[in-house]
């Protein structure tokens, strides 16, 4: 069996028949910087055709554009951020963000950090961490372009976040992951179960250390762009068994998380997570967690 067939077969077991897709380009309006109607009017006047993403408040698909939407005056002014539809979902799951203390554990290149700041109305505090200096520069540019004023960025491994001596009301763990085939033509050839399991271990370490920094009534959103259950449902099953966490119900795009994975039965509440198979969006997984009381 080829490596490609091996993975495709796994997806079939999880209930999805493989199709090769090219997700649509999408953007998200930074409402702190412009009224949506004003931005849409300006972009339409410049020949950009848009379609509102039905499951997102500020997200639009770019249907057609004469010029690159990553080089317009409106983009450079921080009125919107290019951000895939599925990757806009994790931050949208947090509640009551104004004035909160937020940890963005794996922040670069900053699309979700800017989204957090936008939801917070630039109030409160975001601590954004990443271990890659080059990517942190991209994050800093993104923050400057979008006029973000409530963030502190550190070159720092989130597994050491207890050294910050802070407790957070909201924690985003958009974990480093194996990615998926929609972002990398060679994905099937490059990936092995071994490195997927290695990523899963790293993700568990992140979950342990970030949970230590969570305020008692805080919220964690965990997400990956991996389709592999080891990095998703199996990690969530492990987290609720070992970290005194529970999974919150969420209302968002996507299918219920799998609770039967290759013969292994998982906690029923793992079904509250969402698995987004590639299609109009790229592949994604999201889950919202809190402490058990």
């Amino acid at each position, binding site marked *: 069996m080829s490596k490609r067939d091996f993975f495709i077969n796994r997806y079939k077991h999880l209930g999805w028949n493989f199709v090769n897709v090219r997700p649509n380009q999408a953007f998200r309006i930074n409402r702190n910087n412009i009224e949506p109607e004003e931005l849409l009017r*300006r972009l339409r006047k410049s020949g950009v055709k848009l379609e509102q993403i039905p499951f997102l408040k500020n997200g639009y698909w770019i249907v057609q554009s004469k010029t690159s939407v*990553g*080089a317009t*005056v409106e983009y*450079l*002014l921080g009125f919107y951020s290019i951000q895939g539809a599925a990757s806009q979902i994790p931050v949208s799951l947090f509640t009551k963000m104004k004035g909160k*203390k937020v940890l963005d554990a794996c922040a670069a290149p900053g699309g979700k950090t800017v989204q957090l700041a936008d939801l917070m109305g630039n109030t*409160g*505090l975001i*601590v954004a961490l990443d271990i890659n*200096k080059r990517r*942190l*520069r*991209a*994050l*800093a*540019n993104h*923050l*400057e*372009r979008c*006029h973000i*004023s*409530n*963030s*502190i*960025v*550190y*070159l720092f491994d989130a597994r050491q976040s207890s050294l*910050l001596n*802070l407790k957070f009301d909201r924690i985003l763990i958009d974990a480093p992951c194996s990615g998926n085939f929609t972002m990398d033509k060679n994905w099937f050839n490059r990936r092995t179960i071994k490195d997927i399991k290695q990523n899963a271990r790293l993700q568990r370490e992140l979950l342990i250390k970030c949970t230590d920094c969570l305020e008692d009534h805080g919220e964690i959103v965990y997400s990956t762009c991996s389709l592999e259950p080891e990095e998703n449902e199996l990690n969530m099953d492990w987290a609720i068994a070992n970290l005194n966490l529970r999974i919150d119900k969420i209302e968002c795009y996507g299918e219920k998380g799998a609770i039967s994975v290759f013969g292994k039965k998982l906690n029923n509440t793992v079904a509250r997570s969402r698995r987004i198979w590639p299609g109009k969006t790229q592949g994604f997984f999201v889950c919202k967690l809190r402490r058990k009381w």
Partner: protein
Amino acid sequence: MYANLEESGKLMNLIKDFMQKLGSKISFGSENVLNKKGKLFLINKKLHENSQSNFFYAGIYLGENKQGKFIPSFNLLFILSKQKTNKVIIDKKAAWLFIYGKDIFRERILKVEGDTKKGAITLVLNNFEDCLGFGEIIFDLDKKPNKGEAVVNNILDLGDFLRREK
């Protein structure tokens, strides 16, 4: 939080000089401005209370000292554009060219505020009054230049965000 008070004092003077050249009268309290390796950041109380000195970026980035010359951030230019400063407001075509690094011709200027004399620096705004960058006036704006002669020299424009990533 200052790594070096003397250096930070010099930096504060650089930013002050820059703002004065633009005709701005606003100032930032030095207690709210952090210096990180020649880069200045404006932070509020909440950030101050929760930050450590080893940060990479914090609050509002104001600009940096590059070999004794102050390079403003777009955040600073944006703040200044909401105040009384030197400004030229240009039409759509000139705005497009400006963000690609081009200079400005007199016939493309819709409105001028503040200093109009050669040698002054001025913010450059589009017809929505969004700040696109800044430049130096190289020909008195109240006089008629020769045809095809630029009157404002582009010093920094928003296209810098794209050039930085390359």
